């Protein structure tokens, strides 16, 4: 699909030329390895390139932030990951980090400082909203109704409720709020490392319950801003047989598609 040739540079590339990018784009494990999420990663890079934002990635020097380990209770593994990541980030004198994963975002922003890693960390929805507002991205309008699913680590965890909604408004799309939204947003079921194991015994999968609200809302498209919500909501749609009529997209993909 993507015809654009991406010019991706690593921090090491920049350092070799004695240059410093404005942002480090923290791709995250899902963004690097998950086939669906890789499309989101590429979409976001395409936007950054078009908007002429200077950024770099860590490439193979990037490693899991440790979030899933910490949330299961494996503090040892978390801190091992955190400290070696902080060593790399500090070596490159990273100042600003942008990431498309709310879990990486929360860990880098809130949990690395006490271990010696203090950076200005923003989520990709914040940067996208800002670029759209500043007119750095030209868009072609296509009116459609779209729902937005709040991610726990973006909303409740970090108070980011407006940026995703601003993106939808800037793209001139009609936002359909789900029954459980904002502070009352219903979890997709992935957090707390749930996505890495079978769910505990229960009546219904959390992602199915969440998806039912999306189906009830009557939208044909639901926007998300988290790779794990992407996995779970898609799974919920598959399980309820609505994978053909409801599409799940990351907000970066929505922007990329509207981009002239």
């Amino acid at each position: 699909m993507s015809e654009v040739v991406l010019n991706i540079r690593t921090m090491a590339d920049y350092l070799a030329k004695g240059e410093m990018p404005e942002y480090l784009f923290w791709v995250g494990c899902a963004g690097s390895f998950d086939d669906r999420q890789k499309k989101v990663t590429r979409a976001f890079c395409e936007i950054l390139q078009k908007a002429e934002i200077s950024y770099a990635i860590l490439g193979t020097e990037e490693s899991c932030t440790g979030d899933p380990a910490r949330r299961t209770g494996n503090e040892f593994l978390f801190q091992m990951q955190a400290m070696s990541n902080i060593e790399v980030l500090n070596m490159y004198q990273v100042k600003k980090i942008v990431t498309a994963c709310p879990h990486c975002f929360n860990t880098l922003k809130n949990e690395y400082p006490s271990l010696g890693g203090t950076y200005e960390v923003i989520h990709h929805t914040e940067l996208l909203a800002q670029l759209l507002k500043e007119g750095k991205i030209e868009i072609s309008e296509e009116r459609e109704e779209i729902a937005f699913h709040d991610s726990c680590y973006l909303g409740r965890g970090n108070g980011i409720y407006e940026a995703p909604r601003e993106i939808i408004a800037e793209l001139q799309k009609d936002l359909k709020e789900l029954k459980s939204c904002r502070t009352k947003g219903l979890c997709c079921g992935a957090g707390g490392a749930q996505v890495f194991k079978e769910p505990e015994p229960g009546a219904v999968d959390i992602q199915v319950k969440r998806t039912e609200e999306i189906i009830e809302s009557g939208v044909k498209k639901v926007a998300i801003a988290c790779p794990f919500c992407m996995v779970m909501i898609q799974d919920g749609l598959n399980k309820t047989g609505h994978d053909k009529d409801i599409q799940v997209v990351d907000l970066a993909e929505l922007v990329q598609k509207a981009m002239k």
Partner: protein
Amino acid sequence: MTYFFQFLFIALLASMSYLIAMRFKGIIATIRLSQPVYLSDQPAERWKRVFLLAFGQKKMFQKPFVGLMHFLIYIGFILINAEILEIILDGILGTHRLFAPFLGSLYPLLLNFFELLAAGVFLACLVFFARRGIFKVQRLQSENHSELKGFPIRDAYTILIVECVLMAALWTMNATDAVLQSRGVEHFQAVGSFIISENLIPFLDSYSTDALFLIERIAWWFHIAGILGFALYVTYSKHLHIFFAFPAAYYSSLKSSAYIPSLDSVTHEVKLMLGQPASGEAAPTNLRFGAKDVMDLNWKNLLDAYSCTECGRCTDQCPANQTGRSLSPRKIMMDTRDRLEEVSVILSKNKGQFVDDGQSLLDKISGEELRACTTCQACVEACPMELSPLNIILELRRYQIMEMSDAPAAWNSMFSNIETNQAPWKFNPSDRMNWAKS
């Protein structure tokens, strides 16, 4: 005779005050067994929270009708309690309506106001009765939530009944008083009748002065003994939040609800392993990683457990609970408090020393419950007092994983993938940039 009643009153007041003080002393001693956590930074912000969350009940008003009803009880209790001062002084000095001569025309005005507040309390209690018993609000039913079976449900109804009865005693006292005044009985100074209780006068008017005198005294004693007894009962009840909501709000977390603090003892070990200087962190004093029992939690976790009033907003919002999983954040709070009460008994039996009874908090909370949490923070967000069941869950999980090695196989694979492949899945780390290839 008056001296006898004065003596009786002073004895009652002193013994109840002693019992209540001992209870608080016991609760505080139990909380003190816990781990330290520094929560005294930014006092201005913390006081703001006390005013918004505790005094202002900001989050209660997210459900406006329930918020208003709760506010009526709260404001009624705080302001009517101003009258307790007069009642106590009357009891000690053997006087009657001690403040009336000093306050003059303000006195009836105040009492009318108190009676209206009492009506608010009464009304709100009836509404709460109806919500529990008639409209069957889901989160308050023990049929749906096993943690409420037995004492918790009885406790909830007891509180509502006691509050209604206390208000009724207040009105009866004032109504009989008004009739006795109108009959010019000595001792009953003319302060008039009051807005609510005057409606009871027709029912009382036919009684003899002696009978009314007796009713007035019984209502007076019942009211004050009821209040003192209730204050003691509250320390055993979910109603303890009327005291603890204030410190709980002051010490509530100013950080993101998604933030998990670092375990310093682990930092020490990890730094040694990575060959980094570990002098900044004190060597671990507590050799237990995570929490097995209440004393492994920090004092704010324990204050939270004592402050919880079991309203169930957390459980109502919990995605795991909504989908039929065994986790209920409210149960986590109640189990923690139940264990604290057991520990408190051990302390009082052993001169303030904790003696291992072979039990722990993990005997009450199962691994399945802990593993069901998605750490979505809906429970913390839902709590009107910003209490955190999540922090307790996470500390117990640390013990479960690091000390008991009790993880599902899929999690163990995820751990080893992170260790060896730098990602939670088994991909080759050198393929990490493959997405960038066009």
